[in-house]
């Protein structure tokens, strides 16, 4: 079929139809000739209406999520006797209810920071491995294996983390305590290793695939000429990466990391199975205690009696929603500046 179209004044772009504007196929039927034809116009209108309606439905859902959460949250907040931001307890079922998100905010931020600190360097390294280091025949299967990591349900990570990882980390934590215990941050008093640090390790494993797959796409887009120029100047492979690959991919890697951060902030079951929560801020990241937004919602839900208990959880969910919205929105804006990175749908 393509042989019959010999003249290409401007050949159609391989992708990115949405971004190219006037010469996209969507404009064709609006040309006057098509407008004049009677057949199909009603069908066209119905079809356009349906598909536009679906798009609008998505927007309505997003607005409804924000709206409904906000309404329920405002019920809870107006009845709350404690300070929502600084209270260290969660007695939403009590009368009057007293609850606050201080511990949850702290736990969520700390566990996500740990996860990011562990996952981002490793994910970048794996992306480099797949694009620049691995033998060509292996790089496809390796990328596939990393993507499989993403397909494993979070509850299975949680089960593995709770029953396999936790017992295996105790030795490591004792060792960290011996040498870094004086910092207080890495102090470890005996007990199960059900701490924010364990959560961070598990979250790191879980967000590796998304950071890797987006970074990989970015690194693949580095102009071949840049790399060959550097090689021709005698640069070693590492120098090529440092001088041409990393600077080119920086914004992509940043947004990939933020997508990963969004996942880590909202992860529920893996945290709920691994962490042994408490309503205080533990100075050491290795000691059990603390909590995260999502974990608290999942584990307190069955005890939440009546509307007030649930509304309080919804209020904390709203905070989580806003945080992830900001993080994801920022990441997408960075990506949108370089539209060609198509790996963002992983």
């Amino acid at each position, binding site marked *: 079929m*393509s042989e019959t179209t010999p003249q290409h004044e401007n050949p*159609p772009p391989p*992708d990115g139809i*949405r971004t190219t*504007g006037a010469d996209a*196929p*969507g404009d*064709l039927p609006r040309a006057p000739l*098509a407008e004049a034809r009677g057949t*199909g116009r009603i069908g*066209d209108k119905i*079809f*356009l209406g349906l*598909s536009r309606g679906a*798009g609008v439905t*998505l*927007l309505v859902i*997003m607005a*409804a*999520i924000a709206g409904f*959460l906000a*309404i*329920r949250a405002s019920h809870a907040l107006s009845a709350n006797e404690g300070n929502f931001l600084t209270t260290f307890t969660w007695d939403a079922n009590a009368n009057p209810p007293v609850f606050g998100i201080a511990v949850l905010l702290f736990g969520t931020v700390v566990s996500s920071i740990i996860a990011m600190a562990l996952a981002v360097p490793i994910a970048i*390294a*794996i992306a480099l491995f797949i694009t620049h280091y*691995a033998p060509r025949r292996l790089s496809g299967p390796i990328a596939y294996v990393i993507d499989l*990591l993403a397909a*494993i*349900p*979070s509850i299975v990570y949680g*089960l593995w983390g*709770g*029953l*396999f990882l936790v017992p*295996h980390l105790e*030795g*490591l934590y004792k060792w960290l305590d011996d040498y870094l215990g004086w910092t207080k941050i890495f102090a470890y008093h005996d007990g199960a290793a059900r701490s924010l640090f364990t959560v961070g390790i598990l979250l790191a*494993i879980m967000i*590796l695939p998304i950071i*890797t797959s987006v970074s990989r796409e970015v690194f693949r887009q580095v102009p071949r000429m840049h790399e060959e120029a550097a090689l021709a100047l*005698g640069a*070693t492979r*590492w*120098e090529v*990466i440092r001088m041409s690959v990393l600077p080119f991919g920086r914004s992509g890697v940043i947004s990939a990391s933020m997508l990963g951060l969004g*996942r880590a902030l*909202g992860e*529920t079951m893996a945290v*709920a*199975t691994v962490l042994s929560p408490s309503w205080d801020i533990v100075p050491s990241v290795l000691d059990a205690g603390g909590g995260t937004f*999502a974990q608290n*919602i*999942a584990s307190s*839900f069955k005890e939440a009696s009546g*509307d007030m208990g649930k509304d309080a959880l*919804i209020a904390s*969910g709203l905070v989580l929603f806003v945080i*992830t919205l900001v993080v994801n929105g920022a*990441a997408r804006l960075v990506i949108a500046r370089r539209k060609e990175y198509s790996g963002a*749908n992983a």
Partner: protein
Amino acid sequence: MSNLVKDRPAVTGSAPRPGSLRQPRLPRWAPAAFALGSAVVGVAIGLVAGLDSRIQWGLIAALVFVLGSYIASTVVEGRRQAKDRLATSLVWVAFLLAVIPLVSLLYETVKRGSKALNADFLNHSMAGMLDDQAGGGVYHAIIGTLEQVGLATAIAAPIGLLTAIYLVEYGRGALAKAVTFFVDVMTGIPSIVAGLFILSFWILWLDFDYSGFAGAMALAILMMPVVVRSTEEMLKLVPNELREASLALGVPKWRTILKVVLPTAIGGIATGVMLAVARIAGETAPIVLLVFGSKTINNNPFEDPQSSLPYYVYEQWTAGQDASYDRAWAAALVLIAFVMILNLVARGIARWKAPKTGR
């Protein structure tokens, strides 16, 4: 090799022999030898010092490998080559670090899951079972998962498909931009937040009861953006010549989309939908909030609590008995198998029916 980017002459003890342009290099087998050596050192230190955690053995071996090859390379090949080798070994170590958890997770799940897994496990429910009793099964959970995921797909797939068609075939202007942006943002909504939304809308406001359908709605919210994104990518791959040829024959646009564009991309679209199904099949948080869990068989997703595979794993884990742990692992194995089969089939379809991209 010396008039280079950094213009730094080859430093270190082993300067190139006069008259030779070649710098001394480590032999090709050196990295493998270092890897073997450091593994031995790691095990030896671990055994001698009596470290009980295998993780430490591995970390020591990795450290020895990275430092050893760096030092050896500095001595023999010079600083720049050594840095290159350092980067290479760090990248390899990072890759291995990422593979270990995957292998361990799959191994543990298969090993511990196969203990309780048998035909009885698959066709019995947990009705009347105590937590510390061996036996029982996941039949009710499988029914729940299939029904909830099926309903979610029935809601999300058409909306997602139409949205993608809108964005690719019609989308222009502010609305399309807004939809694109919010689809992207929607991808990142935590599953628990989707659950809370349906909770406040369907259960607290409209006053319905916990049911499989409530869970399916939350799952549909999680599924929609994934379907939109993957379908969009696939539709963009359909060559414009096909559309133009059809339109030039006077075929209305909607028939062009239905009869030309969609059939061309159908393989990729099916793959995207199946990957989305695989993703929501493992979601637990919305089920905890909306379906509430049940130990008995409930075939009606529109009324009364149900169970689901991921919820079942969580429930059995929470019970905290040896017998329930066995069941949790077995159910996890069933869940992984289900998700992996979906994944493999989806990728098989993708390979088999890859859209024909022009020439």
